[in-house]
């Protein structure tokens, strides 16, 4: 018999939009005026069947059904506003669904935000206890694991300082450390890794991995596809409130990427510069190896960049260059064309990109120069996405970052006795 701990059936949540304030499902019908109307607003009752004709009705999630087995780590992905957070809010009991049911077996803890309830005036120590109480960790439990929490957060020296004097990194580390000691049977996590520096994110990810390995059931909502890929066996994809796909993570992620790929444009117009300049860049195009326009490539897949530019005058010794920059503004590589003397007209130049880049988002810089003096330069333009789904499973491991190299000559040897003695 399978051991199902979360069973969701036909779950839906309706909001009414009126003005700028989204209002809850309960107030959907045209309210009677006066006191009766006021009272109605507080009642959980509404007439059915009227909502479909109304434009100010909004289903945050609609008719969602799935189940989760004990010990499973289920990823939940989808674009902003696809209903991920609403789903977690309903499952954690913060808000009621409009339709459907969810049966949850066992103790559940949810972490929808790191540091909920931290008070700036209180010290780190005081906040640890307070936050523990808010997350539902027993006071005795916190006291027992206090040192462990403080050590994980690396804030020993400042534990008796009010957190308003903490750096944002320290604040987040302490908040996460408390939350990481939440040990329910079912854990709901929302975007908690979206904070902190890279090192801390890795630490959090490690902790999450440990939680998952400990056989606990986890629902993990994230935009970080690499993290979902690492942690989750199965993934659920939401799209505009509906369940688009649920299945093995690999499949769902590639489905998701293939859908979002359409939105990344494969052709970008370049901005004009000063009219005094002898020329300007016109367009940036991206193609796959089959010369089809595309802006989403799989890990290890070669692709092409085409720069289109225009010259108004004759320019000697023209070099066109394109630079790849990560979204975090880290320059990755710059490609140059061969120098050439050109007359006025439109030109294009193609660069082939065969870098073993890990999953990342790339922006571009485009430059034109004459005798190494640039006369046109733009940066932060275009957007290409390298997905973590590899073309071939090997040698591309998807968990690395930067350039992924598998060096065949670097073999692992046992350390021989005399070497050990020498060292």
């Amino acid at each position, binding site marked *: 018999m399978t051991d199902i701990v979360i069973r969701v059936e036909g779950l839906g949540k309706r909001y009414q939009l009126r003005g700028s304030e*989204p209002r809850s499902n309960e107030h959907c019908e045209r309210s009677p005026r006066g006191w009766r109307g006021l009272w109605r607003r507080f009642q959980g009752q509404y007439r059915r069947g009227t909502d479909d004709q109304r434009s100010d009705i909004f289903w945050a999630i609609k008719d969602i059904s799935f189940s989760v087995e004990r010990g499973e780590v289920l990823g939940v992905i989808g674009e902003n506003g696809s209903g991920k957070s609403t789903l977690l809010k309903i499952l954690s009991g913060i808000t009621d669904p409009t339709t459907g049911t969810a049966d949850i077996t066992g103790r559940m803890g949810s972490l929808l935000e790191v540091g909920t309830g931290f008070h700036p005036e209180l010290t780190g120590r005081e906040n640890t206890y307070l936050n523990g109480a*808010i997350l539902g960790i027993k006071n005795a439990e916190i006291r027992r694991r206090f040192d462990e929490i403080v050590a994980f957060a690396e804030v020993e020296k400042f534990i008796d300082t009010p957190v308003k004097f903490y750096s944002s990194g320290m604040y987040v580390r302490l908040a996460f450390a408390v939350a990481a000691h939440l040990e329910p049977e079912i854990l709901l996590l929302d975007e908690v890794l979206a904070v902190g520096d890279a090192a801390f994110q890795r630490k959090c990810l490690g902790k999450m991995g440990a939680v998952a390995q400990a056989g606990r059931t986890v629902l993990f909502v994230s935009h970080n596809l690499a993290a979902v890929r690492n942690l989750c066996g199965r993934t659920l994809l939401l799209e505009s409130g509906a369940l688009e796909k649920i299945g093995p993570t690999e499949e769902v992620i590639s489905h998701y990427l293939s859908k979002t790929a359409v939105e990344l444009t494969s052709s970008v117009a370049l901005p004009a510069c000063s009219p005094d300049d002898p020329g300007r860049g016109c367009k940036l195009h991206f193609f796959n190896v089959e010369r089809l326009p595309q802006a989403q490539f799989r890990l290890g897949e070669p692709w092409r960049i085409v720069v289109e530019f225009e010259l108004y005058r004759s320019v000697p010794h023209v070099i066109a260059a394109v630079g790849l920059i990560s979204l975090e503004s880290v320059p990755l590589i710059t490609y140059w064309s061969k120098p050439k003397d050109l007359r006025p007209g439109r030109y294009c130049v193609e660069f082939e990109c065969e870098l073993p880049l890990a999953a990342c988002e790339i922006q571009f810089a485009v430059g034109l120069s004459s005798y190494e003096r640039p006369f046109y330069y733009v940066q932060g333009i275009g957007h290409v996405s390298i997905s973590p789904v590899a073309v071939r499973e090997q040698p591309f491991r998807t968990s690395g970052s930067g350039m992924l190299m598998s060096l065949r000559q670097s073999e692992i040897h046992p350390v021989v006795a005399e070497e050990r003695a020498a060292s």
Partner: protein
Amino acid sequence: MIDTRIAKNVVRRIRPAHGLVPLNLKDLWEYRELLYFLVWRDITVRYKQSTLGMAWAFIQPLLTMIVFTVLFGWLVKVPSDGMPYPVFAYAALLPWQLFSSAVTLSSNSLAANQHLISKVSFPRIIIPVSAVAVSLLDFVVGSVALVGMLALYKVALTVAVFVLPVLALVALTAALGLGLWVSALSVRFRDVRHALPFLIQVGMFATPVVYSASLVAESWRMLYALNPMVGVVEGFRWALLGSGTASGTMLCLSVVLAAALLISGLSFFRQAERTFADMI
């Protein structure tokens, strides 16, 4: 929130709520640790970075008492049933401030804890209850000052002081009841927050705080006693100073009204709390 007391294989069902919601006060007990921490937080935070700290809990009612004494005792010369005006005023201020600060604090409490409500699940009722508990602490501190004043004015106490906790309980009940109404309403209608300070002020003048209830004409007294704090405040004066117009009927009316406020407040709050996270 982890329901630590829920046994391993108990299934919790989440479904749309319809009709009347049960009061389910068991929640409050299960989450007592959180209640304790919220009260502790509010008290700790209140006096952080203040030099006088907890002393403010003494100073505030004493200053109000002094202002009232100068204004109403000396200038307007309000009759004080033959008692020295400072004691007369303070004996009434104490329960009134318990009531007014409990209502004010609880009305703002939900908005002040907005981030908790939208991110963590727990019985929301804990929030206004913790606000009321905070004002109870002020009341206890203020009572110490009262003991000092009684000694200073050489007022002899009688067995009647044992009624005081009961009276304080009635004030708390009424305050919590009203606080629940007001806090739940303020989530939906922010107007409440603007109207409340004014209403509290009117309420103080509709309660025999600066004057004696004996000033109110006999024929109006029953109508007057529809304010549950009238019975409580007059009861305080009677229990401490042996003065005033306190009567059994008045007190019974206060108890009944306070209980009605609490029960209606609880059921209204329970009904409204389901949508707090969506509206706050």
